[in-house]
């Protein structure tokens, strides 16, 4: 088991491996040999790393409840405000349990298969040996932190990803259908993608040499494409796009944005799994990308519509945060600013022009921001890793071209895998219990029709 834990910590720190090829290679060799003495020596708890990772986990949970919940809830009409909050909250609970039952095992167990040379099942998904976390004790250590914390940290990613999807089908999807979809999707889509990206050196994306420090593919593209598929299958909201559906409470949305921004340090700098210089750089580039994208978005609005808007600023910030996510372990200061600017522009187009042209009703722009921002970020990660652009540098085997290619593979793979499976899951739910509430219920608002509650009695 120790050996496996080493793999895990190695993969999660693949970035540093890429910068220090010699060390990386030797560790890989150790992994292959299952050289457990040194492995044990390495798996010693560090209180500083542990302190940081406890907090990082708390921060990422904070991103979902209340962060993302508020961000989304402010954007819907007031008759649906509670339904959005309820979806995020219940998904939090549901995903927590699922993660411990079998999710963590499917994502991070690395039984025999990954040590073999050729592609095997283990490159795509984990086994069931960690089911119910039976192996876990207070003494289990993963890298330099307690394994319980590693499980918690990864759990918070497992929670936020399906919560992001909720933005696409807000204001019309059945609560029961959402819970069923989420449960299946997490195990069938999220866990494998997570495994392919982060479970260690035998995993698919790792073989390709993909850089995804904090979840560009695993979280954002994965959620974004599922969101797009979902909003197309669920259909447009009644009245869309003729009837305007302005946000009912932008103060709530911007509060949520602030929480997301702050929480994102847990997400990105936490993905280093340690309190060190790379975590520091990850924090700094996260801040800069968010800032640059915010300014970019409102600058575009200012030029195009004559006025900068708060919703624009908030959306821009999220776009920048999404884009830097996969690059947060490798990009430097100039790269971060550039990625912020580019994601600001591209997501603006995604959430406005493209959406209008395509005609889909991605209510809160889950695809427009997370999907598109995720793709932009994943690809650019390969570019801004270049030392000439201030990045941490490529692995010995990669050039910018080959890295961008590797990144693109992972993007396309994730789009296809998540897109197709999301489609299948949703279709099955649609023909069985149905995805959508009745027209009357939609008119009345989901708060009353699905939860028999009212948001505000001021």
């Amino acid at each position, binding site marked *: 088991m120790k050996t496996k834990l080493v793999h895990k910590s190695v993969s999660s720190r693949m970035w540093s491996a890429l910068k220090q090829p010699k060390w990386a290679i030797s560790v890989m060799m150790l992994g292959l040999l299952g050289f457990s003495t040194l492995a044990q020596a390495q798996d010693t708890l560090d209180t500083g790393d542990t302190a940081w990772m406890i907090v990082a986990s708390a921060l990422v949970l904070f991103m979902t409840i209340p962060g993302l919940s508020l961000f989304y809830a402010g954007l819907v009409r007031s008759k649906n405000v509670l339904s959005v909050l309820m979806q995020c909250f219940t998904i939090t609970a549901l995903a927590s349990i699922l993660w411990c039952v079998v999710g963590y095992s499917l994502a991070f167990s690395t039984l025999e298969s990954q040590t073999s040379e050729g592609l095997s099942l283990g490159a795509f998904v984990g086994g069931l040996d960690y089911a119910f976390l039976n192996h876990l004790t207070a003494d289990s250590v993963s890298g330099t932190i307690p394994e319980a914390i590693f499980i918690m940290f990864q759990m918070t990613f497992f929670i936020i990803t399906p919560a992001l999807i909720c933005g696409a089908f807000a204001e019309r999807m059945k609560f029961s259908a959402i819970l069923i979809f989420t449960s299946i999707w997490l195990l069938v889509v999220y866990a494998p993608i997570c495994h392919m990206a982060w479970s260690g050196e035998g995993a698919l994306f790792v073989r390709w040499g993909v850089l995804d420090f904090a979840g560009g593919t695993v979280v954002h593209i994965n959620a974004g494409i599922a969101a797009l598929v979902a909003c197309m299958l669920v259909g447009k909201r009644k009245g869309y796009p003729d009837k*305007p559906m*302005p946000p009912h409470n932008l103060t709530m949305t911007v509060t949520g944005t602030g929480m997301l921004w702050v929480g994102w340090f847990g997400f990105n700098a936490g993905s280093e799994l340690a309190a060190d210089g790379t975590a520091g750089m990850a924090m700094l580039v996260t801040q800069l990308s968010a800032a640059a994208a915010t300014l970019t978005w409102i600058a575009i609005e200012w030029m195009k*519509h004559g006025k900068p*808007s708060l*919703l624009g600023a908030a*959306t821009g910030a999220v776009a920048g945060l999404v884009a830097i996510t996969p690059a947060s372990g490798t990009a430097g200061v100039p790269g971060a600013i550039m990625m912020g600017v580019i994601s600001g522009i591209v997501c603006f187009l995604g959430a*406005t*022009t493209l959406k209008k042209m395509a005609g889909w009703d991605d209510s809160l*722009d889950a695809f427009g921001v997370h999907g598109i921002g995720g793709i932009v970020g994943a690809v650019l990660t390969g570019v801004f890793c270049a030392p000439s652009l201030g990045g941490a540098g490529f692995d010995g085997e990669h050039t910018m071209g080959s890295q961008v290619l590797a990144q693109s593979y992972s993007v396309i793979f994730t789009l296809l895998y998540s897109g197709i499976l999301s489609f299948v899951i949703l279709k099955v739910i649609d023909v069985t219990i149905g995805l959508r509430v009745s027209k009357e219920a939609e008119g009345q608002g989901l708060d009353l029709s699905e939860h028999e509650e009212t948001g505000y009695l001021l």
Partner: protein
Amino acid sequence: MKKVEAIIKPFKLDDVKDALLEVGVEGMTITEVRGFGRQKGRVEIYRGAEFVPEFLTKTKLEVVVDDPLVEKVVEAISNAAKTEDVGAGKIFVSPVDDVLRIRTGEHGKDALH
């Protein structure tokens, strides 16, 4: 007795109230309403989706007055609420049969002063 009902722009309420006090009105009731009329809302844009609010926030002011005062009251409101652009508002005058002051039980005119 008449009820004078005016739909005005919210930021004019203060001026209108002062004007009414000047002509001797002692009470009035205000409701926040949404108005539809010639005045169209300004385009608000949310993530690129344009949104012209058809209904604008307006303030409805109701004041019940004795017949002799009606004209003065209408004029006072009208002067104070005037703006150059569309949407300045409307005033409706309608009959009221009786007024009662709950506290004292007074009826009619007496209930107004």
